[in-house]
């Protein structure tokens, strides 16, 4: 494996600070991410939670360096992997980080796999291009990988095309592909959204097993609070391109510190609330070309006051030291105290 210059094994595994991403479209500049901060340690699962369009997938793509440019640009911030700022690397160095150190799996495995090549080809490609293996050696490794993700009859299935697999099996292929080169960080962008519930559980279980075996850092991007509660260690809640709250999973569920998190939790249907009206968050997520002044959540917030409607946006408040948790709300004490 190529050695990255300046890499420090004792530095945090992944550290994203003050990340800004914007999309320059003909309709104006959409500020998709406006200062995202979070970190990830080895063996840990961080869930990034939020509605569609809040910037969670864009964050993942920015970390991978696979944003479509144009129109997407990282305009500010740092993405540090073991102390090395990925944004400062050349395209070629950056390319070698992908798959080798940071890998990613996507939401819809059918469209995420190339329909005209066999899964064996697509898996083997990783070994051939990154490790210089021969076609036959790469195929052998592909079979081993399919075995590891528990695809039955891997030896024959390696020559099948993606459309010949079921949804769950396809996602296993994606996972195998991402883990091929033993990356230290895995980003899973809504890995189970396109699957039915029983298969979801199997895939999450598989991910958890593989993560434990390899002591891998996992970033789980999702809008499914149920999935998060099961597997995540910590949660970052995103809203309109900012991390509005960050806390260990238990704390966030029991005592949310941001009105948005609170509203999200209240909107989960519960069995003991049978017959009552389901609570919803009023209004719509902001249009990214026209984010509200001050706190982006203020038009939908029950706690909003004048301070919330004026720039600058609420800073990152330290909610507690031990455990470490933050929130971007002027009135987090009020929210948490109720």
């Amino acid at each position, binding site marked *: 494996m190529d050695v990255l210059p300046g890499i420090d094994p004792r530095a945090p595994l992944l550290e994203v600070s003050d990340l800004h991403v914007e999309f320059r479209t003909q309709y104006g500049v959409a500020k998709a991410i406006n200062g995202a901060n979070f970190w990830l340690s080895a063996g840990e699962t961080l869930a990034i939670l939020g509605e569609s369009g809040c910037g969670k997938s864009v964050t993942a*793509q920015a970390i*991978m360096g*696979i944003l479509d440019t144009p129109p997407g640009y990282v305009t500010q911030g740092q993405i540090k992997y073991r102390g090395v700022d990925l944004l400062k690397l050349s395209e070629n160095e950056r*390319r*070698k*980080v*992908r*798959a*080798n150190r940071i*890998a*990613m799996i*996507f939401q*819809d495995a059918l*469209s*995420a*796999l*190339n*329909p*005209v*090549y*066999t899964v064996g080809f697509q898996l083997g*490609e*990783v070994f051939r*291009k*990154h490790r210089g293996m021969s076609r036959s050696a790469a195929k052998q490794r592909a079979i081993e990988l399919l075995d590891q993700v528990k695809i039955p009859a891997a030896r024959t299935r390696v020559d099948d*095309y993606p*459309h010949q697999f079921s949804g769950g099996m396809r996602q296993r292929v*994606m996972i195998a*592909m*991402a883990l091929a080169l033993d990356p230290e960080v895995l980003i899973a962008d809504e890995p189970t959204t396109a699957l039915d519930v029983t298969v979801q559980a199997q895939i999450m279980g598989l991910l958890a097993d593989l993560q434990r075996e390899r002591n891998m850092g996992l970033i789980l991007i999702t809008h499914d609070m149920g999935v998060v509660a099961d597997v995540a260690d910590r949660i970052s809640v995103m809203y309109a391109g900012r991390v509005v709250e960050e806390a260990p999973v238990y704390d966030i569920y029991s005592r949310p510190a941001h009105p948005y998190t609170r509203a999200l939790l209240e909107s989960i249907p519960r069995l003991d609330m049978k017959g009552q009206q389901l609570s919803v968050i009023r209004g719509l997520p902001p249009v990214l070309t026209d984010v509200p002044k001050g706190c982006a959540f203020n038009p939908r917030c029950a706690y909003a006051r004048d301070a919330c409607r004026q720039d600058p946006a609420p800073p990152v408040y330290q909610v507690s030291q031990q455990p470490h948790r933050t929130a971007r709300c002027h009135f987090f004490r009020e929210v948490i105290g109720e």
Partner: protein
Amino acid sequence: MFRYIVRRLLQMVLTFFGATFMLFALVFANQKDPIQALVGERPVSESQRIALTERYHLDEGFFMQYWYYMKGLFTGDFGTSMTGRKNWEMMADAWPVTLRLALIAIVIAATFSVTMGVYSALKRGGVFDNVSLFITLVLLAMPIVVIAPLFQLIFGIELGWFPPTATRDATVWQLLLPAIVLACIVIAPEMRVTRTAVVENLRADYVRTARAKGLTRTRVIWVHVLRNSLIPVVTLIGVDLGGLMAGAIVTEHVFNIPGVGFNLARAIKTEDGPLVVGFVSILVILFLFINLLVDLLYAALDPRIRYE
């Protein structure tokens, strides 16, 4: 797969009979006085007229003539041209020339349109994209009867880069300019289709996956995107081959190439029914086979398509 091919072949037999029957009817309807057309301005004596009428069954009805023709065809006799030469002899001379011409044209057209289409797609909205769009539109707007003499004049005679006409053996070098002319009529649509397909595929999810795998941009485009983009292009190239055959009639005439188009044009002018039907029958068969080949290739390019 096997059953599919058999079924297609059976369909081809029907199509072949239908096409040749129509063709025969058209040629038959067009005949006024083929004997006079054959000898030109000179007077024809009564005895010659009787002999020729006898030989070509000209006094018998349309269906009988078709019957005689088909009977000949299936016993290996392609008939005799009104010029007295055996049809198959003339075809054996003409077909290799035209096939070579069409093949060179297809290679030129495919190479140009695919590379330029991909490049346009990658730099869409840029100078190259717009200039190539303009040029291809101009080429598309010009009929081959204009392009052929124009290119012959400019590149063959004025600049002298290419030989302006071909000789009897029609070497590759002599066929290059006419092939470029032929290619011009199909480059525009092939390039636009390539461009559109690549643009569409560049946005596909699997491209993001390929990039996330740490593949180089070159590999993502030429291995992952291109293979998917080629599916519609291959179909178009197959269909275009028919267009090239039609275009060859004019091109071969202009460049004096002794191929199918050249002979066909002459046969139509001299009302040489047997020769027209002979050439076009082979043309029909060729076209049908190319279409079958394209459909099979389609399945080879896209594994989601399976015939049964």
